[in-house]
Each structure stands twice: as C-alpha cells, then as structure tokens.
C-alpha cells in the first residue's frame, strides 16, 4: 500500500538536505520495540479506539461494516476535529481490524487513502498538517529525522499528531486532544522549541511556495526573504508565541522548561525594553537620591542638578549631561543592533 503525500514537497527535500541533523538519537524505533515487548500501555489505545469507533459510527462519519469501511472526516466542515476523527478511526481500525478508506484534501484534489490493516499489518504513520490533511512519506521522515524524537508511550501504530498540527490548530482542538492525553503520542522535541518551530514554519512556507509559485527562481527569492524574516527571533515571536507554548506543552515540556526555552527567549525584546525604561529614569534621578540617600549618595544626577540649580556651572553640567545621553544612546544602540528593542 502506498500513501501519497498531497503536498509537493520537493523544496522540503531540499531543506532536509541542507538542514543540520539532530544531535539527539532517534527513539522512534526503540519506542515501537518497547510497545511490541509489551512494556507500553496498549489498553489505553483499545479503550479509546472502541470509544472513537462508536462515536464515529453514531455521527455518520464511519460507515460500519467489516471489510470496506469509509471515513469522511471533513463532512461537517470542521477541519480541526477531523484530526481527532482520523486519529480515532485509525485507532479503531487497529483494534478492530479491517480496511478503511479515508478521503481527504480539498474538493478539487480530494484523494482517497486506503488503509487495509488485514493486508498490511505494519504500523502506519499518520501525520496531520495544518488543514487536517495527512502528511505522509517524505514529510514524516523529515520531521522524524531532524527535530523530533517520538516517544510512543503505547500505541498500535505510529500515529503521530505532529508538532505541525499542534502549532497550527486552535486552542480548542488542542484542549480536546489533551483530554485524550494517553492516546496522543507524545513527541519530545530534540532541539530547542524555538529553533524547531522556526524550521517547521520554514518547511510549511516552503511547501506553500512550492504549490503557489511555479517559477523556481522566484520561489528561491521568496524563500530567501522568508528565511530573513524567520531568522530574527522577533518575527517568530510575532508569528507564533501562543502556538509555540501550546506545542511545547504537547511535546511534553514542563511549565518551567516552556518558560525557559520558549517564553523567556521570545520575550527578550520586551525584557530589554523594560530594562532600558527603568535604567533611563534611574540614571537621571536626583530627587530620590537626595531624599533617601545619606550624605554619600551623590549620584551623577545630583552632580548635574547642582551645576544648574546651585553652582551655576552650566558648561560643566552640560558636559556631564552629554555624557549621560551618550551612555543611554550606546545602550539603546546595542539593544537596537541586536534586534531586541520594541516599543509597545
């Protein structure tokens, strides 16, 4: 049985060829071996599978009948839920046996995927893209190879609700997916989430560009522009901080790790802006030191104020003032240079 990827992924292949390989060992196969050895928890899958099948049949998404069953996940127009449906359907199929046809993709290029468990018992890899479609083949190998160690705490097949779907779905769906947490295969990210997300966005954009821009040169130029955008931490933050937090959570990162690896790095522009906004009044303060400081608390602000308010040494005071301006200007320039300053 062959599953064909609906998205032309030749650019992704290019990216794969140039990307740095993950330093983490791939644990996909190990996890599967664990499962086969019975150390994982197949019962959870079974419960979920039966539950899913019952509900799918009831809702009309699943045409019951052993042999040829049919799943039409887009039926109610709910893209996001189709992921859960397909996942459930596949799980059910695994447990119950039989064959399944899954129609997917947009109307004009709808494809049918046949999964026949009886004929082809080896586990399938299902990867869901942003539009509820499957991503298969190259895309999966690529993800598995480069950023993601998949930890399978127990599952009948390598059903992977991939990071991409975690990044793309709305909160609602993710909450629902978390509700069936034992079912959802946890993928643990290998590299840091920020870099990973950037790469995933890059691949996604690459795929989109492949589909929309036929001219190779124009595509390359567009890719380069996106690379520039994606390479600054700030654009990534603008594109996806909320999704990243969600994705990191789905990938099994603890709250603390999410904070350290996602929230804090992406918030650095704000943190630095805040620091400068505190530094500026503090370096120029003269009222507070005079009120609260003892006789030794003479700060540069007091000295400057004295030149203008007391001794009337305007030139000396002006020189000091220029010094302070220069200090602030240098700091702001450093912050700007590192792309780490943002207003509002």
């Amino acid at each position, binding site marked *: 049985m062959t599953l064909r990827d609906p998205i032309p992924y030749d650019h992704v292949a290019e990216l794969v060829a140039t990307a740095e390989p993950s330093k983490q060992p791939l644990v996909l196969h190990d996890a599967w071996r664990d499962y086969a050895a019975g150390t994982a928890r197949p019962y959870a899958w079974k419960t979920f599978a039966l539950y899913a099948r019952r509900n799918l049949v009831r809702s009309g998404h699943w045409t019951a009948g052993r042999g040829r069953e049919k799943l039409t996940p887009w039926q109610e127009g709910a893209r996001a839920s189709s992921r859960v449906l397909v996942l459930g359907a596949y799980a059910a199929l695994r447990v119950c046996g039989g064959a399944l046809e899954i129609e997917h993709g947009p109307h004009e290029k709808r494809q049918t995927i046949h999964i026949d468990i009886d004929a082809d018992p080896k586990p399938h890899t299902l990867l869901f893209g942003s539009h509820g479609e499957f991503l298969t083949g190259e895309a999966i190998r690529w993800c598995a190879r480069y950023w993601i160690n998949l930890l399978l705490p127990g599952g009948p097949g390598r059903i992977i609700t991939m990071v991409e779907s975690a990044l793309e779905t709305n909160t609602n769906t993710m909450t629902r997916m978390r509700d069936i947490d034992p079912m959802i295969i946890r993928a643990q990210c290998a590299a840091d989430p920020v870099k990973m997300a950037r790469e995933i966005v890059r691949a996604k954009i690459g795929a989109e560009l492949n589909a929309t821009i036929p001219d190779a040169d124009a595509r390359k130029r567009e890719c380069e522009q996106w690379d520039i955008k994606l390479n600054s931490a700030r654009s990534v933050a603008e594109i996806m901080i909320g999704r990243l937090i969600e994705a990191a959570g789905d990938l099994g990162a603890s709250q603390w790790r999410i904070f350290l690896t996602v929230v804090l790095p992406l918030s650095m522009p704000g943190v630095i802006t805040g620091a400068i906004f505190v530094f*500026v009044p503090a370096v*120029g303060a003269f*009222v507070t030191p005079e009120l609260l400081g003892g006789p030794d608390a003479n700060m540069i602000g007091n000295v*400057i104020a004295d030149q203008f308010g007391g001794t009337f040494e*305007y030139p000396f005071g002006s020189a000091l*003032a220029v010094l*302070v301006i220069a200090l602030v200007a240098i700091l702001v320039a450093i912050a700007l240079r590192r792309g780490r300053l943002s207003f509002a």
Partner: protein
Amino acid sequence: MTSARAASAVLAAWYWLVIGFLFAPLVVVVLFSLNDAEVSILPIRALSSRWYAVLMKDQTVLHALGNSIIVAVGAVIASVLLGAPLAIGAHRHGGKVGRALVGFALAPMMIPALILGVSLLTLLNVLNAQLSLLSVTLGHTLICLPYVVLVLDARLAGYDPRLDEAALDLGAGPLMLLWTITLPLLAPAITAAALLAFTLSFDDVVVAFFLTGRENTLPMTIWAMLRYGITPELNALAALTILVSALTALLAEITLRNARSISAHPNLKETSS
C-alpha cells in the same frame, strides 16, 4: 501536579512581595496623614482629618495647586494637539517615514527627565527667555508627548483602513473624514492619553525643578516643604496627590478598556440597527 502547585504558590508569594514593596510606602503616607499626632511615628493614637483641614487653609499649597493644574492642563492641550496629528499622520502615511516620525516623537522617553530639564533650561537661557509657568508647561509637553503618541499609535494599530475608504467612497472630504470617522474612533484613546499626560505633568518635579520661575507647582512646593522635615500636613498633601494621580490613571485605563474595537470586521455586532 504538586510541583506545579508549589511553583504557583511561590509565584503568588513573590507577586504579593512585589506589590507590598510598591505600595507599602503609599499606605504609610496615607496612614500618617490621618494620624492626629504632630510627629509621624507609630503607634497611631487617634485618627483625625485635622491635617487635611490645615492643608485647605494653606495659601501657598492652594496657590501651587492652582499653578499645577494650569501647567498640567496646558501641557495636556499642547501635547494632544501635537501628538494626535502626528500619530494620525504617521499612521496614514505609513512606511519608513511614518515609523521614523513616531520614533522621533518617542525619543524623549529614552532621555532622562533630568537631561530634558537641563537642556531646556540651557536653551531658554540662550534665547534669553524668562522662566515662568510657561517654560514649565513647555517642558511638561515634552515629557507628555511620547506617551500621547504611544497611546494613540497603539490604538491606531487596530484602525481599519477600510473605514476611511468607505467614507471617501461615500463622498466625505478629508476634513469630514477626520471629524466624523477618525476622531470619534480615536476619542477614547485621546481621552486616555490626555489623562495620562495630566498625571505625568501633575507629578513631575524633575523638569519643573529646572524650569520653574517664581511660581511653584505643587510637587515643587512639596519638595520645598520637605526641607523642613516630614510634617503630617505634608503627608496629607502627598496622600491627596496620590489620590488624584491614581484616580486619573484609573480613569484612563477604564476609558481604554471600555473603548470598542475599531475594526470594520463583518462580525462587528454594533453594525446592525
């Protein structure tokens, strides 16, 4: 889950510690302003409002209050008149020039108020200008302008250009567009910016320190009174200042919160009538 709970407990404790650090001095000032005794020491024996009564009869303070209000209102008017057209113009024009304009307007935020004060003082000296309430107003306008631009710019970021296009399609001229579409939509932000500017000007002592002539503003008067030590009357005055600032800031926040979204999204509910 217990570690998560422990972590959130630690965060909560930290939060209250920070809040305590920020507000404890204010609470102490208010408390001592209500203390009947002449000296500000614990324990407080009896509560009274006598220091507020003393304050109400203090001509110097009342005069300074009047000056402060004049300066603040002047600075508000000037900074809004300068800032609103700048923000709207920069937004309409967009692009690098627009961003640069906003950046220039925000630059005074990046310079310590002390430096702004001495720079203005030097400039006025060069121009041979007299220090007066006018010069203080000028300085305060400079402090307030970035905040006005910042508030308006943030509000304009959500401004739907299709509203302008629709108005122009229906035959509105530029003035009518400004008057009937842009300004009403910006009104909450302008109000909030004005209130914010008022607070900034009303509280400022640094710029006023250099630019004040013979007439003192309220913070300058407090500053002068402090030289004779902290009196209960001063505490009362500080408490009132805190009250005014807090109320103004709160009002600004409420105005902005209650402002409806200014997008022309089809889901906008108010459109049906």
